[in-house]
């Protein structure tokens, strides 16, 4: 990057739990986000899990 002002948007590649968290944090901090996901819906592997420990919360 030279001295010019950077572009205030971010591309997030992958719409699993990690990508979603990055996208939300960036949007909440004042950046426009493009969230790219190769399947028809976001959610990733975590959406497939039944429950998560230690609380045994439903992953959904």
């Amino acid at each position: 990057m030279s001295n010019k002002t950077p572009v205030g948007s971010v591309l997030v590649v992958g719409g699993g739990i990690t990508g979603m968290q990055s996208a939300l944090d960036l949007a909440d901090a004042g950046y426009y986000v493009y969230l790219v996901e190769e399947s028809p819906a976001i959610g990733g592997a975590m959406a497939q899990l039944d429950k998560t420990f230690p609380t045994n919360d439903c992953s959904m």
Partner: protein
Amino acid sequence: MNIELLTLSKVTSISGDSGDFTVIIKQSPRFVDMEKCIACGTCAEKCPAKTSDPFNEGLAKRKAIYVPYAQAVPLKYAIDKNRCIYFQKGKCRACEKFCPTNAIKFDETEKDITLNVGSVILTAGFTPFNPDRFDNYQHAKFPNVITSMEFERILSAGGPFAGHVHRLSDGKEPKKIAWLQCVGSRDLNRCDNEYCSSVCCMYAIKESVIAKEHLGPDFAPAIFFMDMRTHGKDFEKYYERAKAQGVRFVRSRVHTITEIDETGTLNLVYATDTGERVSEDFDMVVLSVGMEPAASAIEAAKTLGVELNSYQFVKTSNISPVATSRKGIYVAGALQGPKDIPQSVVEASAAACSAGISLSASRGTLVKDKQFPAERSVQDEKPRIGVFVCNCGINIGGIADVPAVAAYARGLGDVVYTEEPLFACSQDAQDKMVEVIREHRLNRIVVAACTPRTHEPLFQETIRNAGLNAYLFEMANIRNQCTWVHSGDKEKATEKAKDLVRMAIRRAMLLEPIPSLSVNVNKSALVIGGGVAGMTAALSLADQGFSATIVERSGNLGGSARDVHATWSGEDVQQFLKDLIDRINQHPLITVLTWAQVVDASGFVGNFETRVQAGEKTHILQHGIAIMATGGQAAVTDEYLFGKHPAVTRWHDLENNPEKLTDAGSVVFIQCVGSRDDKRPYCSRVCCTTSVSQAIAIKEKQPDTDVFILYRDIRTFGEREVLYKKAREKGVIFIRYSLESKPVVTETPDGLHVRVFDPILQKELLIHADLVNLATAIEPSPNADIAAFYKVPVNAENFFMEAHAKLRPVDFASDGLFVCGLAHYPKSLDESIAQAMAAAGRAATVLARETIQISPLVSQVNRDMCIGCGLCTEVCPFGAIIQEDVDGKGFKAKNISASCKGCGLCASSCPKKAIDMLHFRDDQIVAAVCAAV
């Protein structure tokens, strides 16, 4: 609204540099118009083409037009071109014929989208190891050998068998299931992966515990493992609980799986510790498959031009854990290395922080806020209620008599308008609702449709577009709670729908507009603790333009990292620390207070006030957020002659005094000293890696020195496993001991003697040790004061407790407060750095705003009725209600609305009923209840 979702898309090229990248995205056609699709499901119902459902790991079928799963976002159907009969054979188009909104677009084509972005974050994830490539796992051959991911779907209430656990061979409930660990991990025999996948031990325990809940007390689960790696926060307790609940743990690697009868029962052959051969039958076998970078993720990484490591994970360093080899491109999650959900979420926020630092000059330039028309005052108006009874296609209309329900509603008081839209949520119905509200001057809206959980925000936005306050809205769930569950009795379903609508209308009559609530944000930060975590957090905030004050208890910055030579992957920690301290000292936005302690704090998100005593001087600091980075230290012990004999040392004592090692003929490391026992029922996470690294260093320098590591389970998780392998290759001797028979260190005229029982040889060994180094537990710094000042919780071991173990690993439940580093849990330097950056990233979501909107559904005290008993203050988990001394009236409760989460604990505990919850006032709820009975 500032996140644009591009599904069915992948990156095909990138050019430019950090701050100004041009990226080309290829988007495959969905063949369904997202604007028009209302996800009614008619298309999938009519579609004649069935195919294997990957979301259910192939255990169920789905149609060629589908949503991946019921809660999918976006909840829009898509056509799988390879399975669609029309695309394959040129005929069908059933979906198009039956779609009520004409959303099917067979002529949609692939398109290229060009984006201009300042930064890229790669989070393309992992794929579970596919065991079919090796026949010894028998997954492809035997129906009752399944993967852990398949078992997740079997357990799931939303899965292919509605949560009913049964064998795939004959549908019978299993009585015995074996989990086999390290499938595709920690194994090079068959060209599997040599690293540890980090998560499988814990998920296997979870699956066995949940399976036991499903199958009852007679169910006998067994987990076959090499080392049990429950190194995460509260994982060890979960492991112990599983043992108590009857999960059997067998330390052995199963070598043969055979099918013994036509029903599919399986026989496992394995060897015990003592070498005895055991043959045991099981109804099912679950393979605990490891993680690999997904092929598509590797492709994306290569397209973006970032370097990969030898396992194809994206290459990073321990001192900048989310930075890739290309400036401006960051990585987070399982594509950076195998890891669990909390660590992935931590890295996600850390990567967001990094991108935020590189783009801070342009923050806020491309985002927009939604604008609504001015709110109409309805205070002096009599209620004019509009009722919209949705048909939801045939979901509601096919069962309940919707016109009858609407007619009934029209006859109830204050209802001046009713309508029966086919789909109330469709765009045209929403537009019409806005018109109708204006035209009929409606001031309360009731929608009788589906669940408010998914649709209330949408309707609230619609009525705001018509100038109404969002809280003049009520929903009656006549689909999920009525027509879906009473589909067999249309008449009674209609009657119940009327009841639900009547309740909603009675409540709506009493609804009141609730003004939005916002607070100003002080844009500076307080960081408590000047170790690596605290300094990294402060620097990450200052680099985004926010001022930060570090409060350090001692006279120096650096914390526990001052004792550490190298990270587990070899980076020089002292050089890193020196650079970090220099940057802190030179940064114009950072103030450091040493010999300083927090002595009092008050306030709430955006507006905290903290008193700090630094020597003689008292500082009063105003700040918008606070980060707790108070650190931890290695515990002292009175075991193994520590403190009594000069040759018994702990942690980094050895490497910091290399002269001690020079003449040592034998060195013994003892692990788990004070960890994983009754007093500290947790694993200190980093000790195995540290001792193994030190052992390797000794062997490399002095190959003739005998080095022993006495351990309970070796927990070199993730890519750290390589160190364990290297240590064994270099001749380090690993001897396992159990909590019941710990090693014994004695002083003799002959030097130190270490006695330990070897479970493989079944003999007690005597080791003459010149040096004994202890991996004592890592404990948090005393946190009680800080916890009390800011009203944040600590767990039983005094580590700070985050808001949610999985999804909010750096937030406290109270807004504006964050945690990182050893104060949260023992962790390695790279993990502390990532968590500190994550805390700064999360904090930036507060500090970036001038004001923050807070949910106005808060507690409201009627002070005339309050007797100042203090019960509400006592029960409030968020410090959101305090007692105030009012002149002449004694104590009265006072709401701190900015901290209130609207849970209602205060209202339900108040003996004088002096507290109401806005939007859920007693009279509103009573009106709905009275309407029901």
